[in-house]
């Protein structure tokens, strides 16, 4: 009886942990031409939590370029790797777009 209770608790704990960790899937990847000068790496990301699949716009992606620009004042960003990912949790999922590039100061 005691053992059954312990197993139940352990299983429940495992299920909870797996749920909290979330499963990640990659939607798309893209890369622009990589520059010769690769000293200054900059990264920016933007995300949105979606509950039960209800999402009425994808405007969160528009903030990405502004965030990247903030990290490279008066320069150019080249060799941008864009990753579009989904992390799934219980009934909710997180959509995130991450961009990493090289800042070349003017």
């Amino acid at each position: 009886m005691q053992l059954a209770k312990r197993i139940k608790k352990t299983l429940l704990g495992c299920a909870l942990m797996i749920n909290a960790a979330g499963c990640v899937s990659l939607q798309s990847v893209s890369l622009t031409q990589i520059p010769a000068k690769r000293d200054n790496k900059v990264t920016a990301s933007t995300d949105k939590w979606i509950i039960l699949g209800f999402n009425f716009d994808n405007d969160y992606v528009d903030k990405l370029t502004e965030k990247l620009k903030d990290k490279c004042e008066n320069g150019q960003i080249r060799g941008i790797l864009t990753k579009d990912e989904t992390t799934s949790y219980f009934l909710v999922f997180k959509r995130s777009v991450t961009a990493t590039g090289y800042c070349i100061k003017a």
Partner: protein
Amino acid sequence: MRQKVLQLVLPAVALTATMTGCAILHHAQVGDIDNRKGVAHRPFELKVSETGVNMEEAGDIAKSLSRSKQANKDIENALGIIGLFQMGPKTGNPVFNDGYAKNIVNDLYRECPSGRITNVVSIREMRKYPGISGEIVKITGTCTGDRKVRGKGGAKASSNEQAKDTENL
């Protein structure tokens, strides 16, 4: 009384949610960014779309509207045959005009005749409604002009800067 209010409110909420349409992002891509001071930037946004049809959902709606069992069976058979022609990987729902996005290059040229385009974000998304969808391709970016700020050397200074840029890339 409370039940009546709920009966009115719930379908209204469901209808509003359905008509708004869920937005699904399929692909996002960020192009090279030019954030140099003294360069003229003119932002632009281009969007093309086409109506997609989800045959499965359209079939379900048709089945819920029909009353005869035979009609339901016919719809199911038709959907099965259509399904065989729509196999394979795809983003969003099938559309009846596969060339809806091909003119976006011309639109881009019209928007920025100089061809100096930067900060390009390409988005492929879908607006989902019951049975149908809007298959969208959106491109935002900035059209870059010549350098506004020039050194004392005028064109010479500009060509030096260009040479420096080329060296870095």
